């Protein structure tokens, strides 16, 4: 399991990209920074996706590990100590060169740097810090950098690194302390939450201008994110979503990512998953996460102890609307923005357009369609000038059956991995900056 020394750069890249790919965060959003004369790079608030891999996921950053050598033995992880896999390590110079040269050719938006734990958390964090320092100050790289904060590393190292990175992340990995204890005994919850809290405080202190910029740089300007693995441990959707909500609220996270568990290790403590990674579940969690962040929903509105898992056949917003038929239909001409947002088939952009357009006159169903409303879903919940598009019985079973016709097809597509379709993603125009560029891609539906 020794690191081979005389490896070619291409071989290292293959190993260390392979080892990094199970981290799903690949976003370059959250900070708008102009170029600097003589330097390379800029950042775009909405983030940019430069390519798409064979698994349909966006490639925005050069996502690599510094090394896949690790002293820990997390059960779910391909890089764990007990695995017999080829090991490699970059040098700081190699990472700088790859980043600069890929960036110039517009292959990438920046660097995503993580690592297995070499010797100790401090040692590893220092390696990452040194690499970023070189990249920023010796190479003059002004593009996006996402960096991992290594749990257990010296807070001072994390603080310094935070002035070089745009985004930092610490992965929660498993939503409950029990899950962690079984599958990642070296990572207790407190160890993970400590750096998360530190980064949050750093960002807040800067916002209140309590800390000076360091060499003109801000601390983690694009905020922090985390990831949870879906389906490696028995937590239900309600638990996952509640944890996500708490992270947004109490830790000020920018994003929570969900990663359908891929069984890379044969381990008796890991679930078997004969159907492959739980992609549909991951999809539903992303939809719900979206509803939390942009649609004003709370986790408790979407799920409960009594209904702890998402409906396989209906997206969370339709599901919610069907349980609240007493609130519908709503009138396009008068309903306020937040009410419109809760109508299935109406998204953030279309709701904004409706509110803007109706000031100057009446809207009819064809107008709504042009504004990006998905009428197939919305017709059951909307009136235009007091009329529905066609007479509809406000009856739960009837509407469910109608919606299912459409949704079943989509679910079926997701279930069959080879034809996982992003059906209505592009129904709507993509001009408004919110939700951000990568959201509208990584998220797996159109107007909910």
């Amino acid at each position, binding site marked *: 399991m020794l690191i081979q020394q005389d490896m070619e*750069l*291409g071989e290292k*890249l*293959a190993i260390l*990209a*392979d080892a990094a*790919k*199970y981290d799903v965060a690949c976003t370059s959003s959250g900070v708008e920074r102009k*170029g*600097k*004369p*003589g*330097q*390379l*790079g*800029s950042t775009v608030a909405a983030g*940019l*996706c*430069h*390519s*798409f*891999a*064979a*698994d*349909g*996921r*966006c*490639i925005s950053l*050069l*996502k690599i590990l510094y090394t896949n050598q690790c002293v820990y033995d997390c059960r779910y992880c391909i890089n764990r100590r007990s695995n017999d896999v080829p090991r490699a390590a970059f040098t700081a110079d190699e990472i700088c060169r790859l980043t600069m*040269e*890929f960036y*110039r*050719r*517009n*292959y990438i938006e920046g660097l995503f740097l993580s690592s297995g734990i070499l010797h100790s958390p401090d040692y590893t964090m220092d390696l990452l810090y040194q690499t970023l320092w070189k990249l920023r100050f010796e190479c003059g790289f002004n593009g996006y950098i996402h960096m991992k904060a290594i749990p257990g590393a010296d807070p001072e190292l994390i603080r310094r690194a935070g002035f070089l990175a745009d985004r930092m992340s610490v992965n929660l990995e498993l939503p409950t302390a029990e899950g962690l204890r079984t599958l990642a005994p070296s990572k207790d919850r407190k160890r993970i939450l400590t750096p998360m809290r530190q980064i949050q405080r750093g960002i807040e202190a800067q916002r209140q201008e309590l800390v000076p910029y360091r060499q003109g740089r801000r601390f983690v300007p694009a905020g922090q994110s985390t990831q949870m693995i879906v389906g490696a441990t028995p937590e239900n959707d309600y638990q996952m979503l509640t944890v996500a909500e708490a992270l947004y609220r109490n830790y000020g996270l920018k994003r929570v990512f969900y990663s359908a568990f891929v069984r890379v290790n044969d381990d008796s403590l890991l679930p078997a998953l004969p159907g*492959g990674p739980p992609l549909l579940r991951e999809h539903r969690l992303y939809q719900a996460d979206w509803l939390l962040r942009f649609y004003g929903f709370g986790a408790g509105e979407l799920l409960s102890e009594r209904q702890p898992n998402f409906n396989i056949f209906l997206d969370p917003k339709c599901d919610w609307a069907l349980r609240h038929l007493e609130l519908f239909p709503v009138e396009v001409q008068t309903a306020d923005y937040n009410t419109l947002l809760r109508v299935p088939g109406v998204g953030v952009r279309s709701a904004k*357009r409706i509110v*803007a*357009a109706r*000031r*100057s*006159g009446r*809207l*009819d169903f064809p*107008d709504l369609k*042009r*504004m990006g409303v998905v009428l197939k879903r919305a017709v059951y919940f909307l009136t235009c000038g007091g009329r529905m598009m066609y007479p509809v019985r406000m009856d739960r079973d009837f509407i469910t059956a109608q919606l299912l016709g459409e949704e079943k097809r989509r679910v079926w597509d997701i279930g069959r*991995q*080879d*034809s*996982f*379709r*992003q059906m209505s*993603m592009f129904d709507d*125009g*993509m*001009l408004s900056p919110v939700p951000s*560029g990568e959201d509208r*891609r990584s998220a797996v539906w159109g107007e909910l």
Partner: protein
Amino acid sequence: MVIFTCEDSLEGILCGVYDAWMSRLGHANVRLELQERGNLRMFSEYRQTAKEDWKTEKVIDTIRRKAGQEVYEQVFHASLSREEEKADRIYRFLICALHLGPAVTDMLQIPAVYELFRMNRNVTREAMHLIEFIRFSQLREGALFGVVGPENDVILLMAPHFADRLNAENWIIYDEKRNKAVVHPAGGECALVRLPDEKWRERLTESGDQEEFERLWKTFHTHIAIRERTNRACQMTHLPLRFRPYMTEFQ
């Protein structure tokens, strides 16, 4: 019906707008068309618009004053559209815009406004995609060369992004469908030039160290995908085939 024909450019179209408007024939009795459109209509009178700077300036000034900068930008984007009907659509939109003012951009229920919005969205979307998907190769002398084949005439919209980001580099973005390019000298200003096809192809074949990084990029692109999640259809939705011939990782 009197048909005003104009050159396929922002200036040309705005001159057409000026002539059609000032003819005082009534909006319903005039139409704008791009020159060199094959099939002539019977029972129509054709009038060729002369492109003159003072007309363009006058129209731009009126748009800015009465309808605002955003309307002007939308018109500019629409003028880059590949759609043949764009000149008349811009004319119809401007009739509304000069009447209703800056708020016009919200009134998507008006067909003329929606048509312009749609063209504008189409152009902007393609420019956005190409900003993400364009690939540069390094020529021997170190300059970066990127080729695109866009449906709409968007290289002008791509240029500011790269002028900022790659400010210290010499680069060229070449539109192979229209044989023109934006050229950016390191530390300088962009210029739009005509570039005949053979010239750059020659330069590109004797390129510098690109191969090493092109190989490395392909390696990365392959290895970053999770095999268990293979999903070509999803990849297709996000990255339609028409972009791929220009992208290193798919060559």
